[in-house]
């Protein structure tokens, strides 16, 4: 297991580095942000002074070396916009996104398991058809559209929820989470349903039934476990994709998370902040992928044992 983890970590480190490097180069290609940070009528000397002060006058490889030398000392640079430490800004924004993502995923998985299992018990039954249609629609709705409709209906017309922000306690969470979880819940429901149908038809579930296990037991203990690995893989991809959703949803709801920070940093050409946010995101995806691999390996081993025992 340890060798496996080490190898997995090493092979995942490469994409991580590539992403950070790629964003560094791409961001520098957007040009010198002097015009953004200096007043419109700033003199050419002022611009040069600004570039020199921030190292933008150096060739890109030299900036890259400087940057990685800084990162090695855990110094991600300072924000051009606020003058704060970039890593601090990224770390401050990160929990807001993480909380949103975790709650969203937990709820999406819960919904997917309940609805998916229910649908799988009677394939092509009424429940299956209705939930199939709903989950398909859920997986197809653009999140930004849902967000503005949600604000319009629930905050403006009905006035039951706050429009945005994080101030109103639990109520603040309802719309962003509802918008974010729609797609993962829809996709996962379909995956769970499919995996459950094949798991329920597998030999060891038949054995369990033959032994007289109750239907609930069969579903909960035997089939669900077998259906978990594919769902886990998809859930992992969806969790990565949540960052996509977060970019849009955080902007609309004024959620102080990493997605909004990144968009703002791009718009402001605030390279240090963008780099720090990207690195933090890449690292968390890296950790997530490894966690999924471990979970997958554990589940896989257990399923194999189970199948062996039943045969």
């Amino acid at each position: 297991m340890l060798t496996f983890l080490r190898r997995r970590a090493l092979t995942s480190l490469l994409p991580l580095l590539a992403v950070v490097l790629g964003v560094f180069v791409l961001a520098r290609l957007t040009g010198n942000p002097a015009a953004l940070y200096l007043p419109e009528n700033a003199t050419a000397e002022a611009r040069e002074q600004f570039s020199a002060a921030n190292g933008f006058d150096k060739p890109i490889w030299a900036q890259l070396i400087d940057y990685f030398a800084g990162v090695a000392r855990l110094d991600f640079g300072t924000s051009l916009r606020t003058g704060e430490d970039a890593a601090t800004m990224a770390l401050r924004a990160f929990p807001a996104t993480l909380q949103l993502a975790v709650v969203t995923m937990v709820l999406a998985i819960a919904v997917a398991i309940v609805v998916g299992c229910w649908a799988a018990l009677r394939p092509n039954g009424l429940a299956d058809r209705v939930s199939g249609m709903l989950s398909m629609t859920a997986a197809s709705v653009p999140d930004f559209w849902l967000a503005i409709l949600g604000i319009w209906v629930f905050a403006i017309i009905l006035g039951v929820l706050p429009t945005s922000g994080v101030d109103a306690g639990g109520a603040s969470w309802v719309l962003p989470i509802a918008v974010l979880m729609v797609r993962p819940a829809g996709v996962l429901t379909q995956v769970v349903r499919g995996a459950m149908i094949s798991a329920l038809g597998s030999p060891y579930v038949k054995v369990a039934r033959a032994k007289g296990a109750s239907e609930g037991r069969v579903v909960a203990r035997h089939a669900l476990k077998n259906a978990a690995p594919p769902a886990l893989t998809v859930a992992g991809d969806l969790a990565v994709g949540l960052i996509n959703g977060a970019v849009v949803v955080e902007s609309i709801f004024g959620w102080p998370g990493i997605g909004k920070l990144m968009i703002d940093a791009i718009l402001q050409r605030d390279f240090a902040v963008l780099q720090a946010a990207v690195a933090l995101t890449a690292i968390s995806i890296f950790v997530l992928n490894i966690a999924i691999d471990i979970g997958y390996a554990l589940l896989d081993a257990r399923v194999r044992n189970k199948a062996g025992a039943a045969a």
Partner: protein
Amino acid sequence: MNKTRTTALIAASAALSVIASGCSVANSGGNGSGAASGTLRIVLPQEPPTLEPCEASLTATGVVTRSNITEPLLERNPTSGALEPKLATEWTQTEPTLWTFKLRPGVKFSDGSEFTSEDAVKAIDRTANNTTLACNVQGYVFGQTGPLTLAAPDATTVTIKTQEADPLLPLRVSFIEMTKRDISTTEKVREPIGTGPFKIASWTAGQKLTLSSWDGYWGAKPAYTTAEYQWREEGTVRAAMVVNGEADVATNLGADDGAGDTAVQYPNNETTALRFTNDQAPLNDIRVRQAIDMLIDRDGIITSLFGGLGKPASQLIGPGVIGYNEAMTPTKYDPAAAKALVDAAKADGVPVGTQFRIIGRTSQFPKIAESIELMQSAFAQAGLNAKIEMMDTSAQLKYQLRPFVPDAGPIALMVMHGNQAGDAAFTVGQYFATDGAQSTGGTPDLDAKIKAAAPLTDAARQAAYADVFKTQTDAVRGFAFLANMEAVLARAKTVDYTPDAATGDEMRLADFKPKA
């Protein structure tokens, strides 16, 4: 066992998220109910990057900092244009290049220390002369003046010596916010200490900024004791927050943002226009530029797109700015005449079919994309070939500011100019002079008029700049003006406040009062 484990897993992750949410987001307090106990809740379009006083001419910073946390020596009345005393009680031009300011006695910083001429000298030096800080005010207001020589003959007197005679010096000084003598001169300060009626109570970055009033303020105590700032990008969301009672004031709204009966209209200093590259075909022919000017349906855009906000513009500044030419009128929408001009130019061999770009900045003002689309469509009908390019601020600035993108071809650039200072000098040098930072046209004759106007005062100054605007339009026509913009401020029923032209740049909390 396995079932319990699954349940435990879900429970654990739920618990984790609850704990996590407890840590940083959800604990910022639950006062979502209406205007409680002297708290004014304001929602802005964006979070201030810092509250650094020397960045006061930067809208996002200035709107919070100016006259709330820190104060200048004097300030300009946005309605009358007159300079009024603030931390200085009087100022005189004792010599052509020397100004003397008398400071208000008994003024304290919010940390209790006295405000003296030494603080003022340090603050002026730091803001006007310090180029390493790259402060916005330094570039915007003092970029062309050269360094000031400062002295403090006594505790309540400050003298400022300029390189050349500068009638605008008091106006320039009104941009300098007073800070303490020990403020950093090498780094910008995120949370400054000032003499204003409010001080920073707390700032949760990304979420909320709270200011509170303090007892030692020299002036009248503000009606609200606390001000809470939040920020939302979407105008509809800002408006909805006021309508829903989540905030008391929202700024920079468009007509369609849904402020409803909380809406108050106000002029916001900004003028929109298309700026031409006068030296590139087909825009190098003045008839083509005149035709474009005639093809802009100003009334249609303002009525249908801006929802009635704004007035058709005839020049790059609005009424109320020194130098505004009352005699000039907005160009009439006349597609037939425009077509005739284009045809005439075509007959003379001007390649009117050559494509030019209309470049706009995404979300610079509400309905910018639709406005440009409408223009482009009208241009096409008159036989011109325009291509729309919307860019983000950084990319657009490459076309707006020198050094321009080389070999960019013919461009009609959508610009929005705000003259915060109230004097045409801050407009014409940049936009109309041949070597102006944002100028792509100009003639020697116009340059001479601009130069001649600078040292004038009073009526002569007004007349000289009014002539500059007229000459630009008649002889150069580097611009097709769109509108003097207006915006909507959403104001809760419980709040009494009248926005003015400066509200967008400087929102004085002391002017807000609860409605009886």
